[in-house]
Structures are given as C-alpha cells and as structure tokens.
C-alpha cells in the first residue's frame, strides 16, 4: 500500500513538472504588457487636407507625429464640413495603415484568379503596361483599351478622360454615383447638371427618401445645415423626412412621414394638389418662368392637359392618402408648411429615381420646388458653379486617336435621358462577345465590379474575354484578384489630389488633398502613372498631357483660381462672411499678388472656395429655348408617346403597388449604412466591427424586418437567415426592428461576413430599371427568408 502511495505522489510530481515545462514563464507577465510601439518625444505636424473616401470630400486635418498619421480631425476652415467629420473619415488612419495593403506591384504568374503573383518594382510594372498600350495603339485599335473608373470627380477624372481621348478610345466607363437628378434638370431646366440643394440657407428641408444623414452626396452638408454652429433652438431649420423606412435621417428629422414603397411621387402630387387648390403656390413665378402649367397645344397642335389640370383631376387628397398611407390631414399640413416657409426645398435623389418610373417620379418631386418658385433662390434649388480651374491643354489628336474615337462605345446605347448603369452595359456587351466589341486591355480604377456589381456573373464572364486586365487597387480586392497586373495606387492620405465639393453643395469648393506621410514604397499615384504612360507613349498622347507629374497638373489648374478675380483661399467663418459681403457689393481684393504664395497658402489652409452665389443671374434658372422651366418637356412627351402606352407625366398608376411575387412575399429594400464607403467597408476595422449603431450590431451583415413579420415567419431576433430571391441568395443575421414596415426587408448593402464572404442584396435585384435613365430599380425585388 505504501508502494501505491509513493507511485501516486510521483505521478502528481511528474504532472506538475510537465506543466511548468509547458511554459511557466508565460504565466507570469514579463515585459510584454505594454506593446512596444517605439514611442519617443516626437516631431508633430498638423496638415490640412481633404478626405477622399466619399463624394462629400470633407476638409480634414492630419496630426502627423514623426512621420506617422496618428489622427484625423476636421479642417474647421472647410465651408462644407466646418470641422466635422463622419466615422469613415475618422477611421481613415486604419485605411492608411491597413495590414492588407499591397506592398508592391504584382504580376500574375499562375492562372487567373489563382492568387499566384510575382512582385516587381513600380518602374517595371509601368513599363509592362506601357508596352502593352503601345502595341494596342500600334495595331490601330486604340478603342480596345477601356477603363472602369469609380467616383473620381475632379482632375483625376479629367486626366483619365483626356488620356483616353488622346489615346483614341471612347471607352471611359464610369461606375460612379448616378442619381438621375442631372437627367431631370436637363429635361426641365435645360441645364445638364445636377442641382445643388441650399440646405444651409433653407428653413424647411423636405427630403423624399434621400438619406441625408447617412449617405447621399454629403452627410456633412446635411449635418451642418441641420444644426448650424452657434445656431440653437427655434432658429434651426426644420427637416421633414418622407421615407419608406425609419432611417436615421427619419429618426432625427423633426418630423417623419412613412410612405408605402414606390409612392413618393404620388405624395408629391398630393402636396401639389393642396398647393394649387389652396392657392399656396407662387403664382407669379409660375406665370413668369414656368411653361406646361396650364393646358397647352403640343407639337401636333393638339391641346394637352397641363400640370394644373392633371394634378387637380388625379390627386384628390383622399386618394393620395389611400395610395401613400399618409393621413389626409398630414398631407394638407405638409403642403401648408412647405408653402408657408419662404425658404423650403424638396430634396430627392436615388431613392426616388432608382425605380421603374424614377425619372417621372423625380420630376414630380422637383415640381414642388418649381411651384413654390424655390429655384435659384436662397434656401432652394441652386445651380452652383464649378471652380474656375485652368482647363487641361487642348488634347492633340493624331489619326489613330481620331479614328478610335469615332468607333462606338462598347455596350448598348444609353437610354434617352440618362447614362444608367454604364458599367453593366459595358460588361454585358463583352460577355456577349461580339467580336467587334473586343477589349484588349481593361484598366480598373477605384472599381471592384466582381464584388459591387449587381451582376457579378456577367462581369466574371466579361473578364474572361479580356486578355489583359490591370487594377490600380491598393488592395487585393475581388477584381484585382482576377487581374494580370496590379499597380497599387497610393492611398488618399499620401497622395496629391483635388477634392471638389459634390454637386449638392451650392458653392464651388476646391479642396486639396496633400500627402501627409511618406508614400508607401510599393505604391504609385495612379495619376502619375497615367502621366507617365502618356509620356512613354509620346507623340500626340504625350503632347496632350504635358505635365511632369500630378502635382504639376494640380498647380497648373490652380492658376485659374489665382487669376479668377473672385473667391478666396479657405478662411475662418469671419473671413468667409467678410468675403461674401464684399463680393455681393461687387468688390474683390486679391490676397496674393503672386501665384507661389497663393498656392502655398491654398495648400496650407486646405483649399479654395467662393461663397458668393448670384441669384439674379437668369442663366441659373433655365437654358431651355424659351428660357422657361419646362413642366412638360417636349422631348419627354415625344418619348412617352413613342412608348405608346399612353403614359403622361405626373400621372402615376396608383394600383401598381405589388405586394408580393409568387413565393417571395417580402419586399427587399436595400439601403446604405453610413459607415460604408462603397464596397470597401472591410478596409477599416473600427468600422467593420461596428457597421451600425442601429441596430447595434457587430461584425456581421444583417437584415431588418418588423417584429410582426419576424413573429409571423417564426424567426427570432439574431437568428441567421438566408435572404432568397429569384436570382440568388445570401446569408445575414435577422434583426427585428420597429423601424421596418411589415412586409419589408431592410437590407443594408456593402457588408461582408468576417471571413470576407459578401452579403450583397444588390446582387439579388430583379434587374428592372427606368427605361429613360437606365437607373436600376432598387426596391421592386421580392424575397423570402429561410432558416440558415
């Protein structure tokens, strides 16, 4: 028995020894406790720049310590953002220092998409591309070069376009924010530009579904208007949000009006009815500046019903109430408020236009602004100027270029009044593989269609037809993975770029993003690459882009600002006010007598602006032949007649509202979360961790249904489901949310699962679109949920 006991003790001893050998020193903390980040008292700099993450292009200030960008704050001098920023901009440091950014250019060695690469120095990568382009041009087929470019408004876009023109290809394919508002302005005002919304000057903002606080052109523009610095209480403007979903914008608007999906236009017409019935609209403005209000003879001389008759005949408040779900009193009071406030504006965007009748719906909403005469008036719709930049040198075209430019663009012809989904039409044409539409080389700039397109399978097919694909993405995104060559761009905080304010902002702002840290060795500014390519191609292509580098180009363009005779380098609010008052009186004093100090000051302060808008300029109202705003644009009437369905503007079929499609009982309502920067969300960990506070959710993609719908379907909050549509399905967490109407599925897009798997509701879209603008319809797809 003693024996047994001794054995026993031995066993314990051995176990103990084994355990300590397992790494006892790890059990006790050593110096590991504070991660050594090599800190020492450092040299600190504050540099003004611009955020390039979304179209808002806010002013930022970087805090740079010993060459590292440790913090991004707002540039208080920037008139649009005024020192505020959104979470995406703040998380920019995590984009810059993302562990997954590419360390150098890569050339494919394995087969496509396999992920086998050889890295090579930028110099060689550019040569490789230059040789290829040389060959294409040499073969006399310049049109077989194409680029798909994301949002890059400003000099980058101008540079690409010039390069393509000089090279001889019409195939600059834009894959950027299209909201159809330019089509509407073009038809009604004859001005082919997007409107600006003077939210800052408005005292009542009625937004028809525009997610002002979440996405739109510039959430910062909306924030500043919503709560202007130093303005409190009752002086602040009122925001009314008309929406199908209780969005964050709806939540924080002083009033929110929930409408049935697809009924924005009917509601707008209901308001117009009240405005006309109660004589609340601006009669003199309409008489003086608007045509199509009264009945009118058309081109064939037939008398057609004008706006007034159509509205009065079709939109009795009770009927509107029934169609929209908004109570009668609400409609009346809404119309009254809109009329009573001298500075009100109806805002609309993709939420209205991305529907089968989107163009007409957008016109209906905008007609409210016209009825009230809130066009080209403070607080209403303005047509702002672009910054007076020096244009690029006129392109020089040789024979090859001229011949190439004559060739048709790849893809079906665009619809009558818009550009629609240009990128998808392009891909469809290639995937269809008609030999005449062959693309020899495709460049991808800020574009990741394999992840972001509504039809990735079409893109996959198209890419297979293209012998040479180059991506400029700094990350190995889905499409870059299928490229043959990757020449990673520098990231926004290490490159020069101009950052013009989006069209939604009424005043020209030309902010400049400057490198705040040493550029990554493996990266090359794509702008510089394009200029380099032009130089290497030489000849007329080189002559068309005679700039040493992108910075030179920017400086050259800024000459225009310097000699414009108006505007100012960004300044404090006081300076801005002062400047505006001066310009109102027709005065302007140059702050700088020479360009060099002007440029230095501009870079140091973050940009240039001109906060004076001349409302007395009639050219800002309409460029139509008769100088009037057209409620009944004849080209549109012709197109509608041509359709032969007897459709008339401002008359919307109120019974069309589909409630379900066989086997798919729920309406899919994709929306954009404010932390999302297009499809690139996974780049910033802080954002990926918490894409939304509403619902409070971490890391995982989700969909929202009303608690009633969830209960009816037998799902509980937090469960993982498949969202299934006719075209496909994806996985997401189900969230029961009071903010979603019963029968709808609120589907945030742009999210990924932590393992990288996409959860993209846009890939379920039914493919329908507005025949006039080509914009895809985003809320006519029906789905069902299945337990995962």
């Amino acid at each position, binding site marked *: *028995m003693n024996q*047994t*006991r001794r054995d*026993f003790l031995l*066993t*314990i001893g051995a*176990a103990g020894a084994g*355990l300590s050998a*397992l*790494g006892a020193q*790890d*059990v*006790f*903390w050593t110096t590991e406790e504070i991660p050594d980040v090599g800190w020492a008292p450092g040299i600190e700099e504050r540099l003004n720049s611009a955020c390039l993450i979304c179209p808002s292009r806010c002013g930022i200030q970087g805090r740079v310590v010993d060459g590292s960008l440790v913090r991004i704050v707002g540039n208080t001098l920037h008139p649009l953002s005024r020192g505020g920023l959104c979470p995406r901009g703040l998380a920019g440091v995590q984009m810059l220092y993302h562990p997954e950014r590419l360390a150098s250019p890569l050339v494919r060695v394995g087969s496509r998409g396999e992920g086998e690469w050889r890295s090579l120095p930028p110099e060689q990568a550019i040569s490789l591309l230059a040789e290829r382009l040389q060959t294409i041009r040499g073969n006399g087929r310049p049109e077989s070069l194409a680029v798909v470019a994301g949002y890059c408004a400003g000099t980058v876009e101008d540079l690409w376009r010039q390069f393509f023109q000089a090279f001889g290809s019409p195939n600059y394919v834009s894959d950027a924010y299209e909201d159809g508002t330019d089509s509407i302005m073009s038809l009604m005002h004859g001005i082919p530009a997007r409107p600006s919304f003077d939210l800052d000057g408005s005292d009542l903002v009625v937004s028809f579904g525009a997610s002002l606080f979440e996405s739109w052109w510039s959430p910062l523009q909306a924030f500043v208007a919503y709560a202007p610095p130093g303005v409190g209480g009752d002086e602040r403007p009122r925001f009314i949000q008309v929406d199908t979903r209780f969005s964050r914008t709806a939540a924080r608007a002083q009033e929110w009006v929930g409408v049935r999906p697809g009924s924005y236009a009917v509601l707008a017409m209901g308001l117009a009815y009240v405005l006309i019935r109660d004589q609340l609209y601006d009669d003199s403005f309409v008489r003086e500046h608007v045509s199509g209000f009264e009945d009118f003879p058309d081109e064939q001389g037939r008398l057609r019903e004008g706006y007034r008759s159509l509205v009065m005949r079709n939109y009795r408040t009770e009927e509107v109430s029934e169609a929209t779900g908004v109570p009668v009193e609400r409609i009346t009071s809404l119309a009254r408020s809109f009329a009573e406030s001298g500075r009100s504006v109806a805002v609309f965007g993709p939420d209205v236009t991305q529907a089968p009748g989107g163009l007409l719906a957008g016109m209906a909403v905008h007609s409210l602004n016209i009825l009230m005469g809130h066009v080209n008036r403070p607080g209403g719709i303005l047509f702002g100027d672009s910054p007076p930049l020096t244009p690029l040198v006129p392109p020089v075209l040789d024979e090859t270029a001229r011949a190439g430019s004559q060739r048709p663009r790849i893809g079906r012809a665009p619809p009558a009044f818009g550009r629609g989904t240009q990128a998808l039409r392009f891909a469809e044409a290639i995937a269809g593989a008609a030999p005449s539409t062959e693309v020899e080389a495709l460049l991808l700039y800020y574009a990741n269609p394999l992840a972001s397109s509504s039809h990735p399978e079409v893109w996959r097919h198209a890419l297979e037809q293209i012998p040479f694909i180059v991506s400029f993405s700094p990350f190995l995104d889905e499409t870059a993975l299928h490229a043959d060559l990757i020449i990673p761009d520098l990231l926004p905080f290490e490159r020069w770029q101009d950052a013009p304010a989006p069209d939604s902002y009424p005043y020209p702002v030309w902010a400049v993003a400057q490198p705040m840290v040493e550029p990554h060795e493996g990266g090359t500014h794509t702008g510089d690459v394009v200029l380099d390519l032009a130089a290497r191609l030489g000849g007329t292509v080189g002559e068309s882009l005679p700039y040493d580098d992108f910075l030179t180009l920017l400086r050259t363009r800024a000459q225009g600002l310097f000699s414009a005779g108006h505007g100012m380098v960004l300044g404090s609010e006081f300076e801005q006010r002062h400047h505006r008052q001066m310009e109102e009186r027709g005065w302007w004093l140059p702050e700088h007598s020479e360009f060099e100090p002007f440029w230095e000051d501009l870079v140091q302060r973050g940009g240039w602006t001109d906060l004076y808008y001349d409302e007395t300029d009639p050219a800002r109202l309409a460029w139509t032949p008769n100088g009037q705003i057209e409620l009944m644009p004849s080209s549109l009437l012709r197109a509608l007649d041509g359709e032969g369905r007897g459709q008339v503007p401002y008359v919307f079929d109120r019974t069309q509202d589909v409630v379900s499609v066989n086997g798919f009982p729920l309406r899919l309502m994709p929306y954009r979360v404010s932390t999302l920067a297009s499809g690139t969300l996974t780049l910033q960990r802080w954002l990926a961790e918490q894409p939304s506070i509403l619902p*409070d959710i971490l890391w995982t993609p989700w969909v929202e249904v009303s608690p009633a719908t969830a209960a009816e379907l037998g799902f509980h909050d937090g469960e993982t489901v498949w969202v299934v549509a006719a075209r496909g399905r994806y996985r997401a967490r189900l969230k029961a949310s009071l903010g979603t109407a019963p029968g709808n599925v609120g589907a945030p897009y742009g999210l990924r699962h932590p393992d990288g798997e996409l959860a993209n509701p846009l890939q379920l879209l039914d493919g329908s679109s507005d025949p006039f603008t080509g914009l895809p319809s985003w809320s006519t797809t029906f789905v069902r949920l299945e337990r995962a």
Partner: protein
Amino acid sequence: MRPEVRERLSRLSPDQQALLRPMVHTSRGFYIGVAVLVALMIWGIFAYYLQVRYGLGRTGLNRPSYWGIYIITFVFLIGISHAGTLISAILRVSKAEWRRAITRSAELITVLVIGFGAIQPIIDLGRPDRVLNVFLHAQPRSPLLWDVVSIGLYFWSCTIYLYVPMIPDLAIIRDAGIKAPRLYRYLALGYRDTPRQRAVLERIIGVLAIAVIPIAVSVHTIIGWIFAMTLRPMWHSTIFGPYFVMGAIYSGIGAILVAMVVLRRVYRLERYFRDVHFDYLGRMLLLMSLLWFYFTFAEYLTVFYGAEPAEMRTFWSKITGTYALPFWTMAFTCFLIPFFLMARKSTRTPRGTLIAGVSVIIGMWLERYNIVVPTSVNPILEIEHAGHYLPSWIELSIMAACFSGFALLYMIATKFIPIVSIWEIEEGKEDSVREVAERVASYLPGTADAVGEA
C-alpha cells in the same frame, strides 16, 4: 497496516481504537478517490494556466456580466466555511453536549474551505501578478479590502480554533506511537493532559469560541456588503449582511450533514454520529430553512412593492425571465425540499438529512448565482442592452478543481487527525452525565441550593 501498528492500536481504549483506525488503515477506494480528485485538480490547474496565459477572455465573462462563477464560488465556499467554526462555537458556548462528536469534522471543513474560497477572487483577477497591490496601494474604503482583512483574520482564528482543541488528541497519537512520531511530538506541544494543562486548554477554547463568532459573522457580512455597497438593483440592500450570514450558516449545516453521513459510512463511525445528531442538526436545518424563506421573501417583497423600474427588470428576470429556472430551482432546493424533509421526524434520518443537505448546498450555490448574475446582466440604464452570461469550460473546470481540491484535502486530513475529537468524547463519557445533571438541576426552581454552586 503493519503488524506493530496493529499491535499498538490494540492496546488503546475502544474509542481510541475506533477513531484512530482511519488514520492508519487506508482502503483501495480511498486511493481511487484521491486519483480522481487529483486528476480533476490537474485539469483545473491547466485551465487556470490557460486563463493566466491568454487572459480572462477565456472565461464567459463580458460587459456587463463582469462577475461570474469565481465570485459565485467565492461567496459559496466562504459560506460553507461557516459550517464548522460558527456552529461548533455556538454549540460550545451554549454547552450543547451532543456537539462532542461533530465539532472536529465541522471545524476541519471550515479551515480547508476558507483557503479555497479565498483564492477565488484572485483567480478572478485580470492581473493576478499585481495582487500585492492590495497591500501596497491599499484603499481602505473598498469593501474588497475589508474583505481581505476579515478573511485573513477568519482564516487564522479558525485554524487556531481547529488546532487548539486538537492538541490532546495529537498527544494521544504521539503517545500511542502509531504514526509519524516526530511530527506528532512536535504538534502536540508537550501536552501531557495534566489537570492544569486541561484547565488552561479549556479556558483558551472557551475564549476562542466566543471570539470566533463575531469574526465569522463579520466575514460573511462583509461579503454581503461587497454587493450591497454598490448601487446596483437587488444588490444595494441593507438586508444583505445578515442575509449572507444566515445563508452561510444554512449552507454550512448542509455541508456538515453531508460530511457526517459520508464519514460515518466510510469510517464506520455509526457509534459516534448517531441518530440524535442528525435529528438535532436536522432541526437546525429546518429552522434555517424557515429563516431563509423569511429573508428571501422579505427581500423580494420589498423590491416588488417598491417597483423601481431598474429593480423590477432584475426582479422579473429572476421570477419569470432568463433566470427563472435557477431561481425556482433555488426556491425548491433551499426551501421546499429541506423544509418538508426536516419537518418530519421520520425523515430526519441520516438518509433524509443527506438529501436535505445536498439540496441545500446546491440551492445555496444557486442563490449566489441568482444574486451575482441577474443583477450584473441588467444594467441600471434601461437603454443599455441586457447582457448574457454563460460560463466557459475554463471556469467550470476551475470550479470543479476547487471543489475536488477541498475534498482531497479533507480526505487527506482524515489520515492525519482524528475526525472525531477523542478526548472530548472521553471527557463527555466521564463527566457529561454528571455535569448535565447538575446543570439541569440548576435550572429548576428550588434545587439550586441543594446542589450548590461548587
């Protein structure tokens, strides 16, 4: 057993023989038991190694469930520790004669369990390497610091309180020469059982028994205060001090009963742990079950009646919500089972008390769970989400290891000390009947003079 030991043992009195035999005779079952317990402990130590190596993240704790299994086990074990000292002290002070057979086993529970209880908060620390900061940077307003002091004091006083009454027995072992002569010579401190020594010893025991009671009461009061001093719903309650002490005694009695049944069975101590012990302890358990019900009812009624929203969220989460199962199981095991078993004489048997004791032990663990977890996961701010807590295998392993460690030490201790106080039994046999007769006589009117005040 070696022959000479057997021979020496046979020379002793029957009581001594019976009570010393377990120290020199070890069965196969004992080794198997030890092996199982040691394995569990090693497993738990490995779990703790992982926790220390990688962080408290290995537990199921989170925000706002900052506390879990370890704190529950802490409160529970320190509660169990009230078994011995407090009960034995009360019985001693009140001169309950039937205590003689049970004090030792009870006090032993105390000393061993305090240690395991006291390490729980250290296991729970995010930075065990800095535990000495508690002394280096002591912040006297913290109930946690009061706790360190009171548990320290409690541990040492209980150890002394176990040791002093054991000295005569150690001397008996030394004299019998059946085991480790040098050790027992050292431990017995030269005790020869002279009348003077005996008198001094009894006086010290008397003083200790009185001193240890307030210390024991303070310990669990302060543990209650750890919770009560926060402003959290259903923690911030003046009843917590006494409620915790009461609960501690309750679980302590449960533990004694279980220990007695087991010891009686494995060491064949039926002659010492008799039905009357189970009957009396059973009555105490009955009393405590009623007290428990009273306290619990009072606490919950007060909360319910006040109906403060924050309190009610926690309240309903226990009564009908997420924690309804543990709550009602607790009500069942802490009250209904022991009450109905102990209310009837026919079930105040060893078997009945065993069931009741186990039930109370489980119930009291659940009570601590029901105190710690539902409050933690229900933040005061309604707008915050309620949390959730599921212990990880690491926590459960460590808890299991601590329980096994306790059982293991208890088993091993029975090999080194007599689990029933030999001298007290003998003394009882010699003197009790007379003393009790005298005492009883002294209560009765008119007999006091006859017996005299001697």
